[in-house]
């Protein structure tokens, strides 16, 4: 809620600005966020307790014992750990600018390649879930907003429930009921359309709970506006008023939530991919976390921060285009 209000205030402040100046500032602040995320990713690599070269050798060989000094020196030289931190940092940023996120300790391959291979299914899942969540939230709102009956109570209760329930648990229930017992969908996540249905639902239902609550609030507020009464006075049907007049207004603050939803979607997707044994970032990240393969995890942090910034710029642009009050002469 605060998010929307803050966005709202920000938007009001921005009206007086030249759109190009606004856009340039928006891009600049996005770059700052990505740079800070890169710094954070670099720091996590330095924070690794113990000797990094030792850890890398252990991750590679699977041994626990101390490595001979010659081997340590070779690894130190290879990764540049023998240089001062400032030089390492500069090199790190320089490599990122050239699209190089480092090399996996375990797989001896560039992190960019590993993530690029696996990010496809995750993005498909996330987009499918985002659209489904919106569809569910909007449909529920159209049906229940401003009405006080048993259905509206049931549905808004369901929204609170869905917004709270852990996504991995919901995913498991769906898996047990629809794949194991009813055998409607495949048990193990396949890349087919049928295999996508359950993971998408598991991810979307939680999000639709959040969206639903926000859109419902806004919808109820807009229903009391004068232009709604005037539309009704013209003899428009109740559903027509809701669909053509109220929804457009109510959806606007919800759109700003889509940027925020990305983080929620990525977190959820990791868990849900594990539940359904789907291909995607989830499996890679969990494996990398348990084998302490830092470059993969910090690479994923950097990429998701970049995606977040990109998406929030798009959302802000869309907001300005969709809301005529934001348009400038």
């Amino acid at each position: 809620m605060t998010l929307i209000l803050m966005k709202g205030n920000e938007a009001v402040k921005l009206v007086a600005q030249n759109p190009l100046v606004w856009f340039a500032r928006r891009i600049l602040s996005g770059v700052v966020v990505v740079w800070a995320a890169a710094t954070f990713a670099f720091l996590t690599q330095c924070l690794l307790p113990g000797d990094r070269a030792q850890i890398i050798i252990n991750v590679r060989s699977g041994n626990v014992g101390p490595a001979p000094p010659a081997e340590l020196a070779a690894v130190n030289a290879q990764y540049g750990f023998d240089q001062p931190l400032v030089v390492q940092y500069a090199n790190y940023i320089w490599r990122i600018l050239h699209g190089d996120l480092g090399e996996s300790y375990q797989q001896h391959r560039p992190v960019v390649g590993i993530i690029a291979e696996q990010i496809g299914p995750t993005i498909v899942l996330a987009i499918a879930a985002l659209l489904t969540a919106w569809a569910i939230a909007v449909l529920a709102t159209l049906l229940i907003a401003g009405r006080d009956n048993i259905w509206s109570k049931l549905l808004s209760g369901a929204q609170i429930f869905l917004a709270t329930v852990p996504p991995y648990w919901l995913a498991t229930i769906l898996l047990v009921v629809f794949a194991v017992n009813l055998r409607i969908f495949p048990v193990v996540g396949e890349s087919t359309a049928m295999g996508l249905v359950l993971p998408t639902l598991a991810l979307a239902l939680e999000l639709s709970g959040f969206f639903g609550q926000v859109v419902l609030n806004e919808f109820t507020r807009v229903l009391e506006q004068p232009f709604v009464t005037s539309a009704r006075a013209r003899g428009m049907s109740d559903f027509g008023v809701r669909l053509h007049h109220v929804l457009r207004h109510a959806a606007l603050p919800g759109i700003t939530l889509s940027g925020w939803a990305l983080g929620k979607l990525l977190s959820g997707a990791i868990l849900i991919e594990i539940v359904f044994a789907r291909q995607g970032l989830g499996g890679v990240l969990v494996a990398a976390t348990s084998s302490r393969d830092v470059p993969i995890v910090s690479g994923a942090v950097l990429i998701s921060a970049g995606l977040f910034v990109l998406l929030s710029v798009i959302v802000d642009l869309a907001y300005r285009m969709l809301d005529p009050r934001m348009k400038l002469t």
Partner: protein
Amino acid sequence: MSRFAEVTVSQPLREVLEFICNVPFRVAASLAIIGFFVLAAIAPKVLQTHDPLAIDLSSSLQSPSTVHWLGTDQLGRDLYSRVLEGAGQSLAIGLGATALSISVALILGVAAALFAGVVDSILTRIFDVLFAIPTLLLALVFVTVFGPSVLTEVIAVGIATAPGYARMIRGQMLSIKGTGYVEAAKALGHPFPRIAWRHILPNTMNPLTAMMTIGVGQAIIWASGLAFLGLGVAPPAPEWGALLNAGRNYVIYSWWLEVIPGLAVTIFALSLTIVGGHLQDRLEGKA
């Protein structure tokens, strides 16, 4: 004013009485559930029907029955007793993570609100960056760096959920800073630290209490999510997340091993959300 107005009781006591009598059913039910789990956390033996660690291979993987209310696991251990045994550790992780999260957020949020200008814009940028990283991914970073343990779980969840609180505290403090009573205190010549301590902070605490109530439930969900991925507490401990992780391998034939611990997490978090929401409504209604 109210039906307690004629009784001469002190104001705070009257408020407590009114609060108790006006509680809706869903809030009362939620409080009962929270009470049940808190009791399980403090004294698990009182509510347990079996020894949660007793292995009985002759009754392994039994579905829920009158003897084993919620079934048994692969080693024949009673799931109901294990869920209760796990409540303590799960609650401790949730409370610990929330406490850490709030402390970090209070320091950052208060600093951002009090020192407007450079400090504020730097801190706001830091919140932006932390917001740009998905919560679970941020938690994974901590587990990667420090290795899986209870402490890592608390730190990971605590830090990963801090930016949300920090933003809220900053916003709340900024809005209080502009109110009439703060202006009045300034005009009376009170030093700023005193104003911050006596006026701004107490008024920030109200919405924070409601948020914290909901936050404990969310922290338990995140922590059990980490454990579900096998990145949490070591297996023998029947913490909820560990139970979820152990149940994952049996989900196809013995659904209860996965569904029941998840249900415990869900019901507990849901109860906290309902109570927190109710607190929020009441505190806002008063303001």
